[in-house]
């Protein structure tokens, strides 16, 4: 049986040589042992650099945003150029949501779904190794053996995967043009709501702790495929809706606003938390919002092309218990 990566390379090679796509967006090995990095491939000779493993932390769908595509010397999809994009199930949902929101045309994209069993949480790895630098690693039998300058230590794989991956409800893409690997079994069925049952004080403590770490670099916003506003509300200065300094109330407002702006559109991929250089983790809030959306509107972003997102429409049956 062919390895996942070989299957992926074969698929990519075929798409390029048969001229079904002009560009493949995927992952290649990064400059550090536990990092991968996005790669843009136009020539068949570069296909061998494609990888796929638990270091593939970016949501590549972000590169399909109009503004990002327009920026590249490569022409954007509206003019010409078909794009093949490698997508974990969550990334695939983001692509579907972008199509539903008319940001991307389905006929311009070849969605190469790929089986994913979870992405590494680098903070968990670092905590497990007491902050020591990793020079090498080996995955075997549900354990990852990490090696550094003067240490060797195994960590259980299940202990170092991202929380959002461990509680993933949709590990298989519903919409795709190709699928690499085998469908995943044993997915969770209940949304894990970490904020449930916390007292108001406990919730405040959580928000205060996380938001105090923020340095307003906007890595979270820029990594998110669904944050594509041409002018972000936080950047507007005339009028200026909120401050740009690290004043707590301004930073808090930015994050709440971003969470609410992505309500009903967030696919819970965790790219935002992994992008953050200071480990701000507001995923529990994002997940709670999506839980509300599911309960109220029966909607989960990115599962189907044939929907109207709940925040873009209304229905007479929508619950109104909070105003009536």
């Amino acid at each position, binding site marked *: 049986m062919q390895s996942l990566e070989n299957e992926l390379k074969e698929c990519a090679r075929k798409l390029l040589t048969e001229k079904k796509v002009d560009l493949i967006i995927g992952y290649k090995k990064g400059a550090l042992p536990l990092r991968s*990095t996005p790669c*843009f491939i136009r020539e068949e000779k570069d296909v061998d650099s494609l990888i796929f493993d638990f270091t593939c932390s970016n949501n590549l769908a972000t590169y399909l945003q109009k503004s990002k595509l327009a920026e590249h010397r490569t022409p954007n999809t509206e003019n010409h150029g078909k794009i093949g994009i490698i997508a974990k199930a969550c990334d695939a949902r983001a692509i579907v949501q972008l199509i539903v929101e008319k940001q991307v045309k389905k006929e311009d994209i070849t969605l190469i779904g790929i089986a994913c069993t979870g992405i590494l949480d680098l903070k968990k790895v670092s905590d497990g190794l007491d902050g020591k630098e990793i020079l090498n690693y080996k995955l075997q039998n549900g354990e990852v053996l990490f090696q550094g300058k003067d240490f060797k230590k195994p960590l259980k794989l299940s202990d170092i995967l991202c929380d959002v991956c461990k509680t993933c409800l949709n590990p298989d893409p519903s919409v795709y043009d190709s699928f690499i690997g085998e469908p995943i079994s044993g997915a969770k069925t209940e949304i894990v709501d970490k904020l449930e049952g916390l007292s108001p004080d406990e919730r405040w403590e959580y928000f205060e702790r996380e938001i105090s770490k923020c340095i307003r*670099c906007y*890595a979270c916003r820029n990594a998110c495929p669904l944050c594509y506003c041409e002018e972000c509300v936080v950047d507007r200065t005339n009028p200026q809706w909120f401050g740009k300094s690290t004043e707590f109330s301004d930073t808090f407002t930015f994050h709440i606003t971003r969470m609410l702006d992505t309500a009903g559109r967030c696919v819970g991929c965790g790219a935002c938390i992994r992008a953050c250089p200071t480990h701000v983790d507001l995923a529990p809030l994002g997940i709670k919002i999506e839980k509300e959306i599911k309960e109220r509107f029966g909607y989960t972003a990115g599962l189907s092309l044939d929907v109207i997102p709940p925040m873009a429409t209304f229905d007479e049956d929508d619950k109104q218990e909070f105003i009536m």
Partner: protein
Amino acid sequence: MATFKIKKKRLKEFIDNLTKEYRVFIPVESDGVASFMEIGDLRFDSYNTDRPPKEIFFPQTEALLTYKEGEISSPEQASTEKIAIFGVRPCDAKSFSLLDRLFGMEPNVAKCSEYKDTYWINKRTNALIFTIGCNHPLSTCFCNWLNGGPFNKEGTDLLLTDNGEDFLVEHCSKNGEEFIKTKGMPVQKATKVDIKRASSIRKKAESTLSKPVDITSLKEDLDNLWDNPVWDEIAYKCLSCAACSYLCPTCYCFDIQDERAGNARGKRIRIWDSCMFSLFTKEASGHNPRPSSKERMRQRIMHKFNYFVENLGEFGCVGCGRCIRSCPVNVDIREIINTIKNVKLTVSNEK
């Protein structure tokens, strides 16, 4: 020049004493992020912090002036506090000396900004820098490419070398020398054995760094590369966030904003800004001379390795590796430098 040593077990007491006269900052880890703080548990084995110590002298948010009912005050400028930083790494200490020149603090140095930034200068004057050299540089450290090293002395008042049970202490500046002479740091004279040991530790540390890439001609190489298509290759994956700039010890761009409460009072603040943001060069007309990540990445590299050299005589990078570690898409500035060195000059660019 005498060399001293201080026992590690006496350090806590020494730092506690120091707080009587100075605001003392030490490297502290909190929730996975290491930064310089005034309280916490000092760790000697940690690498350079995640957040750069530039934020002690150049805070991310700083009030330049405040006003209330017609009265203007500038508390930041008037402050007479003395600051001591214990546990800086040589890369960050070097960043202080680079930014000193940028902020106009070193008028006698050949290339120094004319404009004096009194906010920086005020805090930096009389600040005491205790640098701990790096026995175990990280794989992302490349200080040795940039005339730095794990025991480099630039920007340092007192250089400490971790010698096992104690730290070797050497003064690298007049302030450092004064401090040892007068302030009663519980040091003893270092023996020949201590010095020899430290020397072999340093040699070992220096040898673990990857072989430096020769960048003596990098500035000139960049002079000829403005229109070269290499910038597309370099910038394609950049998300245009500010992770690299904000965590960089030598980045210093800032925006100025006014924040007011009604008409009677308010403050003028400066906040960190980044050339990587698309908004950085957006003009009032709506035109943006740096419309894509290509132009912005070019700007970042040119600033650090070309303009800084032209304006201040040295590369504006200390090789600390924070940008490599923090970039969400793993842009590696060392790869960029190598790409630039290897780029084939097109006929039109040849001069």
